[in-house]
Every structure is written in structure tokens, then in C-alpha cells.
């Protein structure tokens, strides 16, 4: 049936217009996203995936938003007759046939290009050209604003930071390592993990001057005598707690306790 062919052709034309619109928008998006991502050293396949998803959604959305009423708005000679013919497809009544004949006659003078927004098309093409040029420029000069791997590695906030930075480095390098185990010093060597403090294998020559440190117990010296006057004797002797001294004492006391506990623990072992 001619009228059925007409509507099939019309749907195909609308599909072509929707495809072109969605394609150009997707290309534009791809160029923008890939230019930005290339400055951060991301893979171009991510940009492609985003563009493909956008293309699919845009195509479906444009097709749904272009019903026959929009075609009629752009072509006043088809007002109401197009929708009526579509709703009466398959109806063999005399008046419907007469209407279809009329519609076929009117469609000969309809230009589907009226559905295309030429101004928008021009702007899109211009933008694609400019952004494409920018993308080629960035890629050719290997320009990096920031390498996301470096950003990940620079994170260091104690053990937790180390934990995450290791993970991020692992993700950045493409492999994920196991969380490093915290090793406690189980030896009697109180100087810590020998692997951490590596002094090197150079021989050290330590010279000690004995005369600076010698003590003669047999040496006698006259006793020192001092006259004590009553004024020099303290009547009241008291002591006051120095706050700073108390804090220092508390900290030192805590430290001593810790050492004692450690020694006790080793002794128990």
C-alpha cells in the first residue's frame, strides 16, 4: 500500500535525522572527554565507552521526542492530516482513501530537511573541528596537567595513608598487592629491625681517650670544711611540685613502666 510505504519512508527519514544528530553530539562529547582525560593520562577507551553510551541514549531519546506532531509543526501543509492518516492505516473506507491520496499529493511538496536544524549543525561541525584540533595538539605534545598515578602515590598519612597509597599505586600500576603485615621485633636486640637501620658495611674506627674518663679511687684530697651559721640553716624545709617537672616525671615514669613490662615479658618467655 502506498500510504504504508510513505510512513515507512517517513520513519526512515526521521531515523536518519535522529542518527545524525546523536552521532554529531557523541563525536563532540568524545573529543571533549578524551582531551580532558588525556591530560590526566587516562585510557582513551574510557572516553569511547562514554561516547557510545551517550550515543545510544541520545538516539532513543531523539526518536521518542520526534512524533508526527513535530513533523506537522515543521510542515504546515501536513497539519492534522498526517496523524489522522497514521491512525487510520489499514482502513479501506472511501473517505480514508481520498484522504490518503490527498496526503500523497501533499508529501510531494514536503522537504524533510526542514526537520534538520542547520544552525545547530553548523555550530556542531565547527566545534568538532576546533576541539579535534585541540585533542591532536595535546596528544602530539604529550601534555600532562597531572598524572593520576603520581597523585595517588603522593598520598601518605601514616600507616593508613600507606595502606591506601599502596592500594592506589597498585591500582595505578595495574596490580593489587596484599596489605603488608606489620612485623614486631621478636628478638632481644633492642635496637629494632636490623633491616630498617642499615649502617652500611664500612668499618667504623671509634677512638676512646682513656685519660679523659679515668677515675683513681686511691687518690686522697683534704676535706673541705665550711662554717655553718645559723642564718644559713633553713628553719622550714619544704618542697613544692614543679608542674613541668611533674609532667616530665609522669612521662618518664610511664616510659620506665613500659620498659619494665617489656623486660618482664621477655623474662617470662
Amino acid at each position: 500500500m502506498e500510504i504504508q510505504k510513505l510512513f515507512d519512508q517517513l520513519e526512515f527519514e526521521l531515523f536518519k535525522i535522529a542518527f545524525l544528530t546523536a552521532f554529531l553530539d557523541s563525536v563532540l562529547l568524545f573529543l571533549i572527554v578524551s582531551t580532558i582525560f588525556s591530560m590526566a593520562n587516562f585510557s582513551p577507551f574510557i572516553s569511547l565507552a562514554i561516547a557510545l553510551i551517550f550515543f545510544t541514549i541520545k538516539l532513543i531519546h531523539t526518536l521518542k521526542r520526534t512524533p508526527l506532531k513535530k513533523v506537522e509543526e515543521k510542515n504546515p501543509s501536513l497539519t492534522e492530516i498526517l496523524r489522522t492518516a497514521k491512525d487510520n492505516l489499514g482502513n479501506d473506507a472511501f473517505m480514508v482513501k481520498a484522504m490518503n491520496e490527498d496526503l500523497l499529493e501533499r508529501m510531494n511538496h514536503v522537504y524533510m530537511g526542514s526537520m534538520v536544524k542547520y544552525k545547530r549543525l553548523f555550530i556542531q561541525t565547527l566545534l568538532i573541528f576546533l576541539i579535534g584540533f585541540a585533542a591532536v595538539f595535546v596528544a602530539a605534545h604529550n601534555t600532562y596537567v597531572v598524572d593520576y598515578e603520581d597523585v595517588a602515590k603522593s598520598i601518605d598519612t601514616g600507616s593508613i595513608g600507606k595502606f591506601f597509597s599502596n592500594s592506589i599505586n597498585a591500582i595505578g600500576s595495574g596490580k593489587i598487592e596484599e596489605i603488608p603485615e606489620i612485623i614486631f621485633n621478636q628478638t632481644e636486640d633492642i635496637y629494632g629491625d636490623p633491616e630498617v637501620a642499615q649502617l652500611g658495611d664500612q668499618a667504623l674506627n671509634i677512638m676512646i681517650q682513656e685519660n679523659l674518663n679515668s677515675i683513681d679511687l686511691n687518690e686522697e684530697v683534704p676535706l673541705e670544711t665550711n662554717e655553718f651559721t645559723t642564718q644559713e640553716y633553713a628553719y622550714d624545709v619544704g618542697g613544692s611540685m614543679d608542674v613541668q617537672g611533674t609532667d616530665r616525671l609522669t612521662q618518664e615514669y610511664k616510659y620506665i613502666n613500659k620498659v619494665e613490662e617489656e623486660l618482664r615479658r621477655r623474662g617470662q618467655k
Partner: protein
Amino acid sequence: MAIDVKNISKLKETFANVRKAISHVIVGQEEVVEQILVALLCDGNALLESLPGLGKTLTIKTLSKVLDLKFARIQCTPDLMPSDITGTYVIDDVKGKKVFNFQKGPIFANMILVDEINRATPKTQSALLEAMQEKQVTTGNETFQLDKPFFVLATQNPIDQEGTYPLPEAQTDRFLLKIIVNYPPIHDELEIVNRYTGAKQQTAIHPLLKAQSLVLLQTLTKQVPIADDLKNKVVTLVNKTRTNPEFIEFGASPRASIGLIMAAKAHALLSGRKFVSAKDIEDMALPVLRHRIVLSFKAQKEGMTPDDVIKALL
């Protein structure tokens, strides 16, 4: 008149000639003539509300001549009996034998003008309305089919309501359209005066269509296509008359939806279009719906008319 798919556009010319022929006799009243033609094409009937002396009889008589249809006029009075409308058996002498012959009443015509229907008794009104609905008359054991096309134009006088039997809403619902005839404007009245007080002879009316052509046009009217969204628009509009209790006490029935779509199709055909447009529905909404709704007390108190309410719904 032979109708082909290709020459269907000539229908517009035909209807234009009909309007032109009527305008030779009737001055102005184009909208009234248009609505009567719509009712004719829809195979429906019309209720005409008009003050006396506005050319109702002349309009329908002229139209019947142009369309080559049999015309009959029934003047309703309180003593009018149903048999005065439908016909009765009379004793006839055939070859010396007395036989009962059915004498057909004025209803056996194509176009009937029922003047002041609200003056007839409910019994007589029912007989007429039954004939309008069934397109047949039953007398005794016999049923007589009415001629096609069959069209009734019933009139009501909006004044002089004393001693009348107003048609109930259930009966007015059977009329496709309610046409309101207003006084003509001054320039039209001058033309009327010039035509009917001068010595000039009236132009003779020649038939432009045959009865069979009109039946064919009625078939074509039913076939005029309409878009689905316009059908939804009609049904939604009629439904709104039932869901507006502030101004409408009783809304229109589904018969109104059928009537409005049919009237829109006829209006499209008269306009030379082969499909229904939104404007057809807007133009036909008032005559189709105005007699099918009952206004609420609040609307009546505010002085609103059914037309005002329908315009608000549109």
C-alpha cells in the same frame, strides 16, 4: 452525482452552491444553515430555539427545495393527537367494499418542521420522538418505514412558556444539535426588508442534489477519518461535563460523544476537508452540548448560560 476518490474535492463546490442557492431566499443566518446541513449529513435531528418571525419555516422549506426533498410542517397545539402526526386508518370504499386504508400522516416526508414542539402533549411528543429514533411508525399491527433521508427540525419558543410541556432532558438528548437563532444584524434586516417589500420577483429555487445523493453523502460523512488524539479530546470534554459539580448538576451522556464526533465529521466534509480537525470539534461543541447539560443552582444564580460553561470547559 457520481463520486470518485479523485473528484471528492468537488463536494466543497457543491455545498458552496447549496449555500449560495439558500442565500437567494434567506438573508444571513449562515451559521443556522450550516448547522442544519450538519444535522442532515449526520442523519440526525435538530432542535431550533428561536423567537417568532426569524424565518425558520422559510429556511427549512428552501432547503428542502434545494435538496429536492419532500417537506411537511406540523404546528403543535395542546390538542394535537399522535395520529395527527403518524397517520390513521380511514374507511375507504373500494369497488363497493368497505376497506380500511392507512392514511399516512405528515411525518411521512423527508424534511419535517415541527413548530413549537413544547406545545404538544407529552403523548404526542413521544410519538414524534419515537418516529425520529426508530425511523418507522407502528400503527395497529402494521409498521411503516419512513422515507430516507428523514430529518426533523423541531422548534421551541423561548418566551410564552405558559401552558407548554417543556421537553424533558432525556428527550432533548435525542436531538443531535440545538440551534439558537438570533435576531439579524441591521444590514441583514435592511436586505430582508428590501427583498420582501419590493416588487421584485423572488428567485426561483432549483434542486441541486437528489435524495439518493444525500443518502450517499450521509454514508461518506460516517467514513470521514479522525485522529485518535482528537477522539480522546472529545471524550475528555464530555467527561468534564460530568466532573464539574460546581457549575453542572448533570453532565452529558455518551450519546453526546457520538454526536460531537459525527458533527465534527460533517463539519469537516462541508468545509471541503477529508479529515477532522480540532477546529471542527471546537465549532460543533456548543450546538451539540448546550442542550445536554443541566446547570447547577450556583451557575444559574450567577447568570451563566450553558454556552458560557461549555466555553469555559473548552
